[in-house]
C-alpha cells in the first residue's frame, strides 16, 4: 500500500473519468499539493458541545442518543473572515472546506499540519477515510495548549495523505452513513452498519 507522491496525486486529479478521478474540490492553489499530501482548509460549519445537564452520552441507548442532541450541541456557520476562538482543552467538530471524492483504489488518512500541531491544535482523531468516500470530512478539533487559538474558515489546518490500495471491486467501496456530507456531522449511531449490536452490548436489545 504505497503513499501517492505529488506527481501521482496530480495525475489522478487530472483524470477526466470521475469514477477514477481523485477529487479535492475546490483547490484554491496548486501549492496545496505537497510532496506526498494535500493541505486542507477549515470549512465554515461547526458543532460546539455544550456544558449540559444530560447525565451521560450512552451510545447503546437507541431511544435517547439522538433525542438529546439539541441539549448537547450548538450548530453554527462561520462567515467568511469571521473568527472562532478555541479555548484550551475544548473539543469542537469542524469540517473541511474541501469536498473529497476518492476512487475505488485510494484510501486516505487525515492529520494535523505540523505548525498547527506545535500550537497544540489537533484536527482529527478519526483519521481513516475509506476508498469511494465522497464528502467533506468532519474534523475533531481539540486545543491541547494552554492558551486560546483563533480559527478562521479557510485556514489550512490539516493534510490528506493518499494510499493506493488493491481493490477487489465494489465491496471495497465506502457506502457509509456519512457519504455526501457537506457540513460537520454528529455521530450517527444506529444509522446502519454494525451499530445494531451496540444495544446488545449495553444490555438494551
Amino acid at each position, binding site marked *: 500500500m504505497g503513499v501517492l507522491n505529488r506527481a501521482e496525486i*496530480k495525475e489522478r*486529479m*487530472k483524470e477526466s473519468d*470521475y*469514477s477514477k478521478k481523485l*477529487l479535492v*474540490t*475546490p*483547490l*484554491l*492553489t*496548486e501549492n496545496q499539493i505537497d510532496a506526498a499530501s494535500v493541505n486542507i482548509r477549515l470549512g*465554515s460549519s461547526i458543532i460546539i458541545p455544550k456544558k449540559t445537564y444530560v447525565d451521560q452520552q450512552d451510545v447503546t441507548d437507541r431511544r435517547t442518543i439522538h433525542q438529546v442532541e439539541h441539549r448537547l450541541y450548538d*450548530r*453554527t*456557520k462561520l*462567515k*467568511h473572515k*469571521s473568527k472562532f476562538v478555541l479555548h484550551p482543552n475544548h473539543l469542537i467538530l469542524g469540517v473541511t*472546506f474541501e*469536498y473529497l*471524492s476518492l476512487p475505488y483504489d485510494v484510501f486516505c488518512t487525515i492529520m494535523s499540519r505540523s505548525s498547527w500541531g506545535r500550537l497544540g491544535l489537533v484536527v482529527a482523531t478519526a483519521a481513516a477515510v475509506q476508498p469511494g468516500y*465522497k464528502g*467533506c470530512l468532519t474534523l475533531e478539533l481539540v486545543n491541547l495548549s494552554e492558551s486560546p487559538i483563533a480559527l478562521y*474558515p*479557510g485556514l489550512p489546518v490539516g493534510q490528506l495523505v493518499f494510499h493506493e490500495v488493491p481493490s477487489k471491486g465494489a465491496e471495497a467501496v465506502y457506502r457509509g452513513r456519512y*457519504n*455526501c*456530507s*457537506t*457540513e460537520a456531522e454528529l455521530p450517527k449511531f444506529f444509522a446502519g452498519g454494525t451499530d445494531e449490536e451496540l444495544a446488545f452490548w449495553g444490555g438494551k436489545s
Partner: protein
Amino acid sequence: MDFDVDQPAAVLSKSLSLIEKTDLRLHQLDRWQFPTSSSELGRELFLSALASVREPAHLGPMDPVVLYNRLFSLQELAGIIERSSTDRISWPLVRYCDEIWSNFFGENGPKIFYALTPEYNYSILHFSKRLADILRDILPDSAIQALVSNRELYCLQLASSEDENLPLYANIGHEFGHAVFDHHEKAIVSELDAKVGQVLVRVLSDLQAIDATQASRRFRRICQAVLGIGEELFCDLLGALLMGPAFFLSLFEFSWGQARDVWTIRLSPEFQNIRAYPSFGFRLHCISQWAKIEGFRSEASSEAAKSITQKVAELAVGVGTIPVNHNSDVLRVWPASDNDAEPIRDVLNPRLNELKIALGEYLHECDGFVRKWYSTKPFSDVSVYDVAELLLRLERNIPPNIVPDNTLLGKPAEFTAILNASALFRLDLLTGEGSGDGGERLRQTGIVERLTAKAFEATFIQREFNRWAGQ
C-alpha cells in the same frame, strides 16, 4: 380606588414600557449572527425610530392608544430583524444576492438585508417604507422624513434554511423585480398604460353598459388589478432575465397541484389591497420567451453539449414537455360576496385575449427598458456547456462548483450556471421514472440541495481568494 380614572396615562405607561422592551430586544441581538452587514442598518433604523418616538416633543401630542397600536405593528419589523441570523440563512447565497442587488442599485442606492419568514415562498418587503407607514399617525412627517431619507432599505425574506429551498432560489430574481419596479414605477406604469389603455377603454364601456352608476368604482378596481398583474409580469421578466431557465422550472414546480389556467383578482375595500395574478400558463408562456428556453433546449441537444454528458440533452427534452399553453384561461374574482365580483369577471373574461396581447407588448417594451437602465451586466446568458459540466458532477454526487479548464484548479462556476444545473437535476429526480420511491427521492434531492449549497460557498470563496491572489 378608581381603576377607571386615567386610562390614557395608563396606556401611555404601557407603551413606554413596550418601547423599552423592544429597544432592549434589538440591542441584545448579536451582530456576529447577522448574515450581512446590512442587517445592522435595519437595526439602526429601527432603533432610531424608537428613539424618535420617545422624544418628549413627539410623545406629548401623541394619542396613547394609537401609539400602543402602532407599537404592536412595529413588533412585526422587530421580529424580522431578529430573524436575520446566519444560523438559518446561507451567507454565501445572500452574498451572491448582494452582488445582484448592487448591479441594480450600486453602492449609493437602497440597501437590502435578509431574514427568514415562516411563509413557504420568498417575499420582499420595502422595510423603510413600511416603517414610515407605521409611524405615520404618531410622528410628524418631518420627523419621519428625517428618519428614512437616505436610508432606504429592503428586506428579502427567505423561506427557510438554504438546503431545504433550492427550488426557491430562482425566485430571488422575481422578488428583486419588485424593488426595480418601485424605482422605475413611473416609466413602467406609463408603458403599461400605453399598451393596455385601449383595452381598458373598452372594458369601461362594457361596465357602463351593465350599470353606469357603478362603472366608475368598478373600473378603478379593475385598473388597480391590472396594475398588480403588470407588476407581477414585470417581476417575472426580471426573474427570467436574471436566472434563466431555473426560474421557469421554479415557477413550473410552484404550479403543481394548482389550476394553471386561472387568473385571479382578490378584491378588497381598500384599492391598494386589491391583489391580482395572471395564470401560471400565461406566466410560464412569457417566462419561456424571456428565459430563452427554446434556445437553451436547442443548444443542449447539440453534439457538443451531449459530448459532455448525455444528461443535458435528456433534460432539455424534459424542459420541452412543460406546458405553456394558456388558451383556455379564465378569470375568477374573489370574494364572491363582493357585489363587484361578478360584473368585473363578466367584462374581463371576454377581453382576456386582448389583455394578454397588450401585456405581451408591454413586457417587450419593459425588456428594452431594463436593458437600457442596467446595461447587460446582471443579465448574462446561462452557458449550456457550463451547465452540462456541472450536471456531470451532480450525476456523480460531486458539488457543481467547477467548470474544467486547462488547469488543475478549474474555473469557479457562475452562480446562475450552478442554479440552473441544480434546478434541472433536481426536477429530473423528482419527476424521473428511475428515481425510486418517495424516500429515495427525498434522500437524493437532499443530496443535490446540500451539494448546491456547498457549490455556492466554494465558488464564492474561490473567487474572493483569486481576487486577493491576483489570479
